[in-house]
């Protein structure tokens, strides 16, 4: 039988993804309410920006009515806008930002590390107060409030800060140009060169192009840009670096079918499994195997694992006639890791 045709039938079957009417409806309602909420936020935000801007102007004039050499006064408005765009690009395309990655690590542990103080699990929202504070501190001065929200959630910001990739990102040759269209003086377009250095020493250059609207003095209301396939490249590199980096993948199994999977890249966890395999002792005779509790993938080898009552045994899938018994210490260490 033609294999590709056989797959075509299966691909056809994959189109029948079950999605309940209720889920569909609930999503639409949430979406509409989110869209509406944003709309109502715009007016008060706009008013507060105007009020704050006017207050600042008033204070400025009262405190220093005749500045002799004040840079803030000397910088033309257009340059403040250009400076804001330039700073945002520099911050966004310089990486990795270690401080940011520490915050992301905290969010990750909230979700997956039950021993972590702030652990909430996968189903509950994480506490992103620190993330928001950092985002505001980094970008708050250069965006309108509404613009910052859009930048953080929709662009989204920090898209080029990766925690699992050994890389360097830098930007130069930033050119910001004000629109020549007299009807749109707040519009700017920009270009820059982004240098991406991967750990193998390879350097790639990406052309960044984008546009921004500075709806307030020195503050961006909207910005969008593209960097060709930089993100795809980073993703590919991260995937391949994960492939070469040691990891252990654990899949829960029931009746020979995989249920859930987890992946560990921490050396101490990998050590637990490596030691367990190294110290396991061969059980004589052919075992009458029941369905394994776990499938373990480690260093290009795949094992089945049985655990229970402080004991454990393991089998390499390449040799399904031989089962090895784990030491009680290993069995316990694995149980602790998995729980």
């Amino acid at each position, binding site marked *: 039988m033609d*294999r*590709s045709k*056989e*797959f*075509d039938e*299966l691909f056809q*079957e*994959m*189109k*029948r*993804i*079950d*999605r309940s009417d209720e*889920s*569909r409806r609930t*999503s*639409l309602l*949430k*979406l*509409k309410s*989110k*869209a*509406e909420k*944003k*709309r109502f936020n715009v007016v008060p935000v706009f008013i507060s920006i105007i009020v704050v801007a006017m207050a600042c102007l008033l204070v400025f004039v009262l405190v220093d009515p005749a500045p002799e050499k004040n840079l803030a006064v000397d910088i033309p408005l257009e340059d403040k806008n250009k400076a804001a765009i330039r700073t945002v690009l520099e911050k966004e395309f310089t990486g990795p930002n270690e401080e940011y990655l520490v915050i*992301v690590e905290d*969010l*990750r542990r909230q*979700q*997956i590390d039950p021993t972590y103080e702030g652990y909430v699990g*996968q189903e509950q929202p994480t506490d992103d107060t620190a993330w928001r504070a950092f985002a505001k501190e980094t970008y708050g001065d250069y965006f309108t409030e509404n613009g910052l929200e*859009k930048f953080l959630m*929709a662009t*989204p910001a920090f*898209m080029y800060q*990766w*925690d*699992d990739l050994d890389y360097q990102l830098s930007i130069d040759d930033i050119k910001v140009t004000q629109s020549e269209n007299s009807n749109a003086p707040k519009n700017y377009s920009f270009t820059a060169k982004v240098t991406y250095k991967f750990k193998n020493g390879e350097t790639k250059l990406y052309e960044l192009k984008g546009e921004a609207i500075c709806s307030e003095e020195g503050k961006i209301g909207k910005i*969008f840009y593209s960097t*060709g*396939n930089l*993100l*795809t490249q980073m*993703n590919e590199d*991260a*995937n391949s670096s*994960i492939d070469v980096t040691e990891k252990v993948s654990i899949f829960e199994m029931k009746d*020979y*079918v*995989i*249920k*859930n*999977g*987890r*992946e*560990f*890249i921490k050396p101490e966890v990998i050590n637990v499994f490596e030691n367990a395999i190294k110290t396991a002792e061969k059980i004589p005779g052919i075992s009458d195997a029941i369905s394994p509790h776990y*499938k373990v993938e480690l260093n290009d080898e*795949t094992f089945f694992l049985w655990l229970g009552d402080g004991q454990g045994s393991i089998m390499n*899938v390449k040799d399904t006639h031989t089962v090895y018994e784990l030491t009680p210490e290993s069995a316990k260490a694995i149980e602790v890791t998995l729980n």
Partner: protein
Amino acid sequence: MGDEIERLYLDNSDAVYRFIYLLVRHKETAEDLTQETFYKAFKSLNTFNNEASVLTWLLKIARNITYDHFRRKRILQFFKWGNENDIDNKSLSPESTAEKKEDLSRMYAALNELKQDYQDVLILRKVQECSIKETAYILGWTEAKVKTKMARGFEALKKEFHGEGGFIDGSLKRI
């Protein structure tokens, strides 16, 4: 505004959901990311310049949002597959044979083993039935790259499906 977003959503949400679901294999996450896709699309409607169909444009946004989701989760990935048997029972037509259900189950397992690039291109071309041009647009690749990745992805899928690329569920039952 409400009507506009509703129309966009009603016309395209199932296709977008299906695409995301096949990438993340988790119903709630797929639903959340679908919402996010439409929200982002709605906020950037003015940037849509008709260089692609609305659905293709939405799939591009969906793919970016899903990648972002993967990226945030990847440090320690936790992926729940849901119950594959449930998927089989609900999604297959009544006339489907037991053999086909098992094949589909193996297909999901095999696809899941593939590199993300291969999954993307296979799902877009074969399930979403996007043209090479549309796929190139969504993935930000050249058309030549789509063809190459498609061919390699297909080979990799064959290997995984028929058990040459390592363990998959079906082979275990022979123990």
